[in-house]
């Protein structure tokens, strides 16, 4: 057992760090949940992609570097340590791309992935519906067979980034007469500016239009934009759901970098005799380290031919709670300055802690609520019987 990086991995880290030092903007970009910020973040994706840093773990033919999971973890550590912008392409990269790699066709991969890598096309997810949240399989939006494709009808909601994104992917009921709700679903992709699509931005807790409702009224989707077999959508979607809950959505690098900034803030501002605050800072540092080491163990297991299944639910609960605790501690250290958000002249760290706190509050809800994750952990990892939710 060891935690040593090879010479080649150290060189990869050095290359990433040098590139980031040269390219990361000195001043943070405007919040990516605003129109102006979204555009700026899209340009940043292009900058990353021009030098093959936007999707390091993808094969080279699609714009990546064929990096191992360990190298991806190294890249992410450097990325967030450098204070680089949030990733506006996150949903496409962590949700749709793994699905295409596993279930898509060569034609789909060649058509979709390069423009995702460059930020030319930004993807939003369309899973939830007003009556289908945690019970996703109860969804009612339909895909009806038509010549050469499908017609989508219904309503999707909580679609992150959809206010400004270009395309969306999600599940639709293509067969209304199946014995079980998770049967008869189909995984489809569609443009957000297509005829019949209405996008209504929704202001999140702090008012920024971070997500949207989608109204679909006979939206035509050609057969080439179905992923996997019609009717098999649930299996297609769930086979990569662990990606979102697990590592790829929230890499350890985010939290190690945030914990370092928190430690700096504590050293600069805190009363050393306040051991209650000190303990919380220590817990954030320990939590970030535990998550990083847990990820190294997972990467080692995958490199040794193993896989990660329901264990990704452990990740989801852990990072989402760590993120909130870490930001709450930062706000407590900042006292009266904690609530100053981006755009405020006096805002510490350009309002990053306040924005980060607001963002962290959604963590236990999205990507499968933590209640659902705990059910998964209890049933699949501990073997407890299924029961009423």
């Amino acid at each position, binding site marked *: 057992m*060891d935690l040593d990086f090879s010479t080649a991995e150290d060189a990869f880290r050095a290359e990433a760090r040098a590139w980031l030092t040269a390219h990361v903007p000195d001043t943070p970009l405007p919040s990516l949940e605003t129109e102006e910020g979204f555009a700026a973040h899209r340009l940043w994706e292009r900058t990353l992609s021009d030098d093959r840093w936007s999707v390091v773990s993808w094969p080279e033919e699609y714009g990546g570097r064929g990096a191992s999971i360990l190298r991806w973890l190294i890249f992410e550590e450097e990325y967030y340590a450098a204070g680089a912008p949030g990733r506006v392409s996150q949903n496409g990269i962590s949700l749709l791309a793994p699905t295409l790699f596993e279930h898509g066709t060569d034609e789909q991969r060649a058509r979709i992935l390069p423009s995702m890598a460059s930020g030319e096309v930004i993807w939003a997810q369309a899973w939830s519906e007003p009556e289908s949240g945690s019970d996703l399989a109860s969804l009612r939006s339909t895909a009806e067979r038509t010549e050469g494709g499908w017609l989508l009808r219904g309503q999707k909601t909580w679609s992150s980034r959809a206010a400004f994104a270009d395309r969306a992917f999600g599940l639709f009921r293509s067969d209304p007469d199946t014995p079980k709700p998770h049967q008869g679903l189909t995984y489809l992709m569609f443009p957000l500016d297509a005829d019949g699509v209405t996008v209504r931005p929704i202001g999140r807790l702090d008012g920024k239009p971070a997500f949207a409702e989608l109204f679909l009224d006979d939206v035509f989707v050609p057969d080439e934009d179905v992923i996997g077999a019609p009717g098999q959508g649930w299996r297609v979607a769930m086979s990569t759901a662990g990606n979102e809950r697990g590592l790829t959505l929230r890499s350890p690098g985010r939290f190690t970098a945030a914990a370092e900034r928190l430690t700096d803030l504590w050293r600069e501002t805190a009363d050393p005799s306040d*051991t209650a605050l000190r*303990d919380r800072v220590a817990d954030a540092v320990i939590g970030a380290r*535990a998550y990083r080491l847990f990820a190294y163990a997972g990467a080692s297991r995958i490199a040794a031919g193993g896989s990660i299944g329901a264990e990704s639910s*452990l990740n989801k609960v852990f990072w989402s709670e760590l993120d909130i605790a870490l930001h709450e501690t930062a706000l407590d250290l900042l006292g009266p300055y904690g609530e100053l958000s981006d755009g405020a002249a006096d805002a510490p760290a350009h309002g990053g802690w306040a924005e980060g706190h607001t963002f962290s509050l959604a963590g236990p809800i999205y990507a499968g609520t933590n209640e659902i*994750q705990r059910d998964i952990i209890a049933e699949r990892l501990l073997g407890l019987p299924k029961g009423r939710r």
Partner: protein
Amino acid sequence: MRFLLDDEQREFARSLDAMLTAADAPAVARAWAAGDTAPGRALWSRLAEAGVFALAVPERHEGLGPLPLELAVAFSELGRHAVPGPVVETVAAAALLDRLGDDASAALLPQIASGKTVVTLCVPAAGSPYALDADAADAVLVVEGDTVRLAETAGPVQPSADPARRLARPLGGTVLARGPAVATAAAHAAEVAALATAAQSLGLGRALLDRTVEYVRQRTQFGVAIGSFQSVKHRLADTLIALEFARPLLHSAALALAEGADHRSAEVAAAKVTAGEAAYAAARTALQLHGAVGYTEELDLALWIRKARPLRDAWGTPAACRARVLAPAPAAQQPRTRAASRGAEA
């Protein structure tokens, strides 16, 4: 990087698990708590045969070590089976005696490796003025300032809330070693003790979780297994999360100790507080989900529940560990990689 136990280490854990299961370790722990140490001494010999104590003793003194990672693996199993006695203190004493470096100190090391000598150790500077199970030990070591004393008598026994732990302030005796090397050696011994205690906690937490999962699967109320209720499931899920994220901290701390890395103190402290808190939370959950029967000494469960809190606080309270996590790392040594340096800062 291969941050996984290898086949040999896994097999070592499996063989200890099998041996301790066959030896009925809970019965041994009950006897120990009742003052009958004979079964405990017999088990001690079995552990020595399996090489557990030799892991803390260097080869030149007839040991196999020092091998902190293997120690962590072994002590997880000892915790899982509620093995009684000064197991942590004996391996910490081995670390101390080895670092002292003189012949008189080294003389005990082969005896520790072979299991012939049970040692307990008291380092008040590391948190507690008490020696564990001094009345049952063959040698009682006390570190005071720059001296190591071989105590003459155990001192009056003071009962612990865990009847399998007996505390004492050892009295009298002779000075075994004196000088500036003592403080460094004692600090190292305390780190080994903290690592072994963290490992014990992790194993103990896992035992509590496993037994509670088993119980809620078969315990029926309102016509269904109580394990089908969300409130029950979620507590157990949280228990598993806490234990699973403590494990890599433990392994990383063992590696840091093996390398003598400058960030080892912070790493060991992080593992200690995380495993200790996880195991204590597991005990609270086990107690709550068993209900009234969990609050009795009739089930073996009590052996683990009452040990969780003392282990959480022994060899580094949570507050002391958290302070150490944030203490600036020694500046003299340069870590090998930036990742390592992050560990040092943290």
